[in-house]
């Protein structure tokens, strides 16, 4: 299929990182300058911009509609070393950006567990990382952005120029417009190494205790929990906490190239894996056991690279293929402080269910920001990866949703692949406020996604949009 403007369209089946629930859309590769023209071509199914497809569920899909792939690299990023900011294209990835700024002595203010996310995606999902308890989420460090609106205009949005639109776009899942470029605050660093403390923790209660006492002494902190372990080993974990290493902490050799940064993949999973993948209860149990055993009981101030500390899974390309045809589902939720008991009951239910959960990560969140749909709020968050084909997993997660909501918690749009509009309405009480702003900037319903339809985030405008399309 080709269109009149200077960009090409192809029909493609898209999924999220979990490789579940595909839908087919017209995918358009666009430059920033073509976005408005491409969006004009959208019909009743609307348009959506997709980054690197790392959200797990259907957030970056738009079945039957347009999906824009915004070209972008960090090569035209402009670094202001005095102001400690960088202005970078929305389609550029954190990987691109890190390769430029680390050598200049800066780090991104927030990085999730992968560097394969775009700047636009990081804002739209308001991503968080191991530093949330100190630094907050990505939106906290956003200075301004240029936003392509549904009507074709481009506006400069900052928290002073239009605070409503600014905070509705942070965490807004791409439903307010296309982030063409953004200016973000950077973190100055003295070296590209991380000074890391590792502790093996025997059970969940001890983990809560340790993290509650002195998490704030470290910029970064997260624990890996073995959710396959049962009984007195329930919740056994490996806690890693770190900070950017000072120049003085490096040995003489490393001091020659303190900002050396060359992340690379060790291997990539080939496209053909057995139908049911490699990850089942037996392999995951064995892996979890090994991971726990190989971790030192206590080790202080070990120097690691940025990718070892923040992005270990990026070393294996396309690791999501390990789950085979049924794909994987990630479940991430937060419960407020004081609801440790709920967290314990969730962990017990998951452990008892026999679902093979690989790499569950527990983290303490700090303060929330002003974004209406931002996920993090003060409390404990748990994220776990599970094979999508696990028997009864759908019902189990619907059950856990209720426990999380009853505790005053919620789950995360960028990870969600299963939940319902009702659950989202309870978890995100500011949804209606966000919807009013979304309607203000997109009254005809241009921006749509499979997620927005599934969770009824924006009203469907099929009638209006059909009329509009028939006029063009």
């Amino acid at each position: 299929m080709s269109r009149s403007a200077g960009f090409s369209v192809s029909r493609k089946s898209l999924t999220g990182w979990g490789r579940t629930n595909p839908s087919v859309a017209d995918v358009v590769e666009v430059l920033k300058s073509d976005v408005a023209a491409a969006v004009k071509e959208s019909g009743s199914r609307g348009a959506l911009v997709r980054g690197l497809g790392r959200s797990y569920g259907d957030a970056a899909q738009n079945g039957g509609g347009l999906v824009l792939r915004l070209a972008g690299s960090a090569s035209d990023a402009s670094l202001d070393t005095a102001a400690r900011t960088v202005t970078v294209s929305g389609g550029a990835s954190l990987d691109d950006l890190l390769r430029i700024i680390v050598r200049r002595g800066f780090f991104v203010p927030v990085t999730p567990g992968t560097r394969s996310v775009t700047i636009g995606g990081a804002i739209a999902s308001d991503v968080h990382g191991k530093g949330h308890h100190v630094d907050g989420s990505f939106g906290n460090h956003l200075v301004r952005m240029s936003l392509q609106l549904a009507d074709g205009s481009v506006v400069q949005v900052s928290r002073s120029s239009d605070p409503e639109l600014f905070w509705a776009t942070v965490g807004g899942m791409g439903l307010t417009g296309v982030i063409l470029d953004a200016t973000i605050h950077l973190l100055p660093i003295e070296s590209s190494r991380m000074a890391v403390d590792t502790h093996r923790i025997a059970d969940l209660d001890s983990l809560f205790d340790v993290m509650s006492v002195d998490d704030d002494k470290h910029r970064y902190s997260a624990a890996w929990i073995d959710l396959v372990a049962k009984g007195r080993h329930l919740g056994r974990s490996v806690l890693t906490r770190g900070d950017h290493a000072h120049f003085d902490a490096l040995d003489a050799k490393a001091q020659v190239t303190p900002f050396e940064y060359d992340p690379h993949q060790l291997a990539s999973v080939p496209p053909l894996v057995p139908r049911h993948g490699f990850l089942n209860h037996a392999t995951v149990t064995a892996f979890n056991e090994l991971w726990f055993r190989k971790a030192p009981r206590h080790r202080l101030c070990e120097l690691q690279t940025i990718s070892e500390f923040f992005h270990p899974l990026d070393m294996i390309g396309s690791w999501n293929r390990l789950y085979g045809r049924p794909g994987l589902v990630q479940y991430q939720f937060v419960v407020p402080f004081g609801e440790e008991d709920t967290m314990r009951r969730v962990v017990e239910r998951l452990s008892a269910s026999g679902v093979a959960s690989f790499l569950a990560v527990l983290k303490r969140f700090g303060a929330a920001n002003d974004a209406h749909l931002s996920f993090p709020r003060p409390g404990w968050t748990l994220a776990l990866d599970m094979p999508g084909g696990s028997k009864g997993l759908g019902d189990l997660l619907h059950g856990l949703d209720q426990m999380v909501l009853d505790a005053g918690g919620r789950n995360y749009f960028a990870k969600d692949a299963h939940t319902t509009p009702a659950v989202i309405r309870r978890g995100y009480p500011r949804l209606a406020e966000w919807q009013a702003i979304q309607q203000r900037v997109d009254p005809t319903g241009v921006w749509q996604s499979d997620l927005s339809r599934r969770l009824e985030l924006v009203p469907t405008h099929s009638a209006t949009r059909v009329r509009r399309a028939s006029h063009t």
Partner: protein
Amino acid sequence: MQNAFGQPQTIVLLGGTSDIGLAIARELLSPATRSIVLACRDLDAGEKVATSLRTDQVGVDVVHFTAEDVESHGDVLAEIAAKHGDLDVVVLAFGMLGEGDVTASDPLAAARLAQVNFTGAVSASLATVVQLRQQGHGTLVVMSSVAGERVRKGNFVYGSTKAGLDGFAQGLSDWLAGTGVNVLIVRPGFVHSAMTRGLKAPPFSTTPEKVAAATVKGLGAGRRIVWTPGILRPIFVVFRHTPVAIWRRLPLG
């Protein structure tokens, strides 16, 4: 949009009072379900069924639909989609059995059977597919029958309509590759239901609930064809290759 576990939000039954169709809808019910649409000829009967399905969480809508009225199919499906949004699973569940001997000697009754089971099914399938293609996802479940796998003399009019429908659905499935729309062909054996009430059950007969369980399992596994019960598949491999001289004499009714 269904979720990652294949739990649909919207289920449409074309043939909204069909025992098998309703069993499939019940089997698909989950906390993700928002609406069920019963498209049927008899609105009163549909409303009775709707009352039994309706909950606080699940809305049930009864819509008038007649298989023979092929001219209306496009509008009916478009209206369902306009009202309910994305259609995740649409079950083509309507069909008539007809009385074997009577139909064979009654050209009009036979033609009516063909109109419902084949012509109406072809039209309703394609009207459904128009909607599913626009949304870039969704599954059409086509209730075929083993009776179409090798047509037997006892109910050859019915069997031939299912043979035609099965072939149509296979071709449709291939034609739709790459569109995001899936077709699941279900080939049940003899099912104890309103349609077969009073008939003598052959061996390996089954129930709507078992057909529904097999169908939902097939949906989850992304299958193209489901035999239910599964034993019928090897049996029909043998039947297909049975010489005519023997086939004719088999006491299959």
